[in-house]
């Protein structure tokens, strides 16, 4: 897909979305619109991969030209660190927090740092996407998968299961992302600990993996050929790279794939609360959710979204899930043991 095509597609989509929302406006103008206009911007701390996050922001700005989105993209764990460090210094900067570590929201809710808000249209989302108290909702989902470089590894040789990764033939040839940076990986680690225990990671570390930070990076490392197998990482980053013609293929291990639902929430201290609500509603519209499914390769909770034919449906996969509560409780343990096994 060429750059120009992407730009044109974004512009076209923006027009459609804006039209849809303008159409909706004609009947029921969002009650947040006027307040949002006065506030003029929304500050979004997000762990969505950078180009995708910028795309969502551009779509919103196209629909609401007088409201800017300030995107700050970094890893999930860094986002929580930022939010807490800023609060300690009494800085109130962020409106909308979106990370891939659902445990963060348990923590933030308990600290009374989240505002209760139910985005328009989420009623129809499945239960795994909704907080029972109404503070946070799953904006998107991905699954952790194995990816391999098709130039270096044939489909027959490629690892099929998580346990295949323990084979010494992959020694020095694999890459992993870091649970101390990425919520996708923290979730992944916990899910596989449920499946195989910590011994699995202890054994995996014997294969001397290259350690990167973001869950998007294993796929880029593999498609560059620097390592040939990604031991984890969101399947959507591998999917995007594959679409661009990179030599990468995805394997969904049959033991099951860790499902990562990435929540979003508005902060209790949001300096731009109306813009935050408008933006949150916008990100849950079918059109934006469809963009995430189409060009980004993500899964969503929206029942009307359709998925690319070359990606398995969530219902076709065996999903490994963890609860936000357990993720929050074992966050320290996950990071600590990972560092203990992998060295950094």
């Amino acid at each position, binding site marked *: 897909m060429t750059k120009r095509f992407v730009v044109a597609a974004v512009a076209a989509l923006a027009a459609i979305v804006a039209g849809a929302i303008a159409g909706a406006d004609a009947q029921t103008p969002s009650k947040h619109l006027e307040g949002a206009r006065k506030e003029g911007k929304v500050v979004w701390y997000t762990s969505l991969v950078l180009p995708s996050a*910028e795309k969502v922001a551009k779509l919103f700005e196209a629909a609401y030209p007088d409201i800017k989105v300030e995107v700050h993209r970094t890893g999930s764990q860094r986002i929580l660190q930022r939010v807490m460090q800023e609060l300690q210094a009494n800085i109130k900067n962020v409106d909308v927090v979106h990370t891939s570590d659902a445990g963060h929201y348990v923590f933030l809710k308990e600290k009374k740092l989240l505002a209760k808000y139910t985005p328009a249209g989420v009623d129809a989302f499945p239960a795994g996407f909704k907080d029972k108290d109404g503070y946070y909702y799953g904006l998107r989902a991905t699954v952790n998968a194995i990816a391999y470089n098709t130039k270096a590894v044939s489909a027959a040789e490629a690892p099929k299961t998580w346990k295949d990764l323990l084979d010494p033939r992959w020694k020095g040839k694999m890459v992993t992302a870091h649970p101390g940076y990425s919520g996708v990986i923290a979730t992944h680690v916990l899910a596989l600990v449920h499946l195989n225990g910590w011994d699995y990671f202890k054994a995996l570390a014997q294969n001397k993996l290259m350690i990167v930070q973001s869950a998007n*990076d294993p796929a880029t490392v593999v498609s560059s050929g620097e390592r040939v197998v990604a031991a984890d990482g969101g399947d959507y980053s591998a999917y995007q790279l594959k679409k*661009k013609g990179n030599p990468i293929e995805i394997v969904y291990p049959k033991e099951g794939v860790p499902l990562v639902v990435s929540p979003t929430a508005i902060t209790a201290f949001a300096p731009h609360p109306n813009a935050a609500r408008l933006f949150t509603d916008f990100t849950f519209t079918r059109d934006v959710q469809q963009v995430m499914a189409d060009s980004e390769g993500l899964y969503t909770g929206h029942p009307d979204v359709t998925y690319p034919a070359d990606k398995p449906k969530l219902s076709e996969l065996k999903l490994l899930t963890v609860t936000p509560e357990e993720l929050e409780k074992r966050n320290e343990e996950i990071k600590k043991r990972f560092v203990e096994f992998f060295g950094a």
Partner: protein
Amino acid sequence: MDRSIAVWVSAALALVVLIALPLGWLGWLSVSGEHGVTLAHYRDAFADPALQKALWNTVVLAFWVGLVSVAIGAPLAWLTARTDVPARGLIRGLVLASFVTPPFLGAFAWVMLAGPNAGMLNTLWRSLTGADAPLLNIFTMPGLIFVVAIYTFPYVYIMVSNTLALIASDLEEAAAILGAGRLTVARTVTLPMVLPALASGFILAVLQALALFGSPAILALPAGFHTVTTQIWSLFQFPPKVEQAAAFSVPLLLATALLLDVQKRLLGRRGYAAVGGKGGQRRTIALGRWRWPALAACLVVMSSAIFLPYAVLAKGAFARAWAQPLGRDNFTLGNFTFTFFEYGSTRAAIVNTLELAVLTACIGAAMVALLSYITNRRLVVGHQLVAFLVLAPVVVPGVVLAVGLFIAYTRPPFVLYGTLWILFLAYLTKEMPVGYAQADATFRAIPADLEDAGRVLGAGRLRILKEVTAPLAKSGIIAAWCFIFIGVIRELSASILLFTPSTKVMSVVIFDLKEEGQFGAISVLGLVMLALTFATVALVQAALGRDVLGARR
């Protein structure tokens, strides 16, 4: 009483606050517990095997960087100062380029060059030899040492070449007349005379390696090991262990102070009568048939530090897939449009960086000018203390300073975290010694007689400073301005702990992009940073009428 005294005293006081506040907080927090003073944080930090390992890794890294820097820097200095090796001006220019290249950019470029599988040099090696194993693996301790050393050897080079410029050739010639061979002369006469410079260059290189954050973060973390700086940084991850970070910072601070003290003694003992002023002859040694091989060796070093990394950054900026050969299918301007038009953080970061660099350079240059004037003319009681304090930040590695500043300015009465001011304070403090050294040299060269003449004619100190001294010192102060400016735009190790999303600077954005693996955008921003740096260097050269490393044109 001289009215000007208020100016001198307030400049000195500002200095005290600048340095004493963060370091005081750092020391205090490292021993403060819930029930008064405790050593628990030290115990926690040093009993942790992971932290012990990080400490040991840092020792290994710093020691070897020192040695490799000497092995590269000293011969290069000798070649350019004493022999007829061709293209000496070019070599000096390249050493300067390596000196000002941000080390983390070099480290990043070397990931693309010598990643064990996709690295371009390894791909080339495999296609030439058919070998399976890589030629180089940059994600190792030796790889890290190499990448740090190629940007650190200029410290040794500067020390040695400036010393060689002060040693007359008489003694060497006397030895030669007495029948000593060239090597014997070098070993028995030249070497002992440059030994203090070598040792102190070694120490400066070690100090650089101790304080570096970016290169270990880029090369050591993927390989699964930490250094002290990356470990301190990771102690800030949520839930932050700031007290432990403070306790862990203290040995770095002490080690640096100790090493600098050793260096000062070494230089102070330079009592050899032979190393005098610029008198005496310095004869060029003819290398004969070794001329061209010597040049080739210099160029090999320089291609590791400059040519290859710059080329690979340029390639990364224009390629869709950095690991594939550049061609019609693999050429794009998309990285530029993404970086400048789609990625919202870029422009704000460039603006922040430039604002901070200009502000810090202006205030910093004014401060070092005032302070060095005070110390040179002994204007206040305790001017020795002023000289000590202004140079003191040299012993404070960026990460450690940042821990101190973070503690000092996230709580009342001064809450500066979240604003550009905390970065400004970090940069001002960190760059003060470099600027001061430049300004001090400038004022030393301006005789006090001219000012005395002004005094006799009835002008006050401030008026003399403005009308007599300042015009004479102008080019030196401009140079100090430029050094501070260059230091600020490349600063990463303090910024990484002090930024907030609304106060990002270029180096932090590059680091963020690195964590996500966005090679194209990093290359583009890297090129922008290099362009800014070299434009400033050109400005210094014009202001000084000589090259930055100290040689007259």
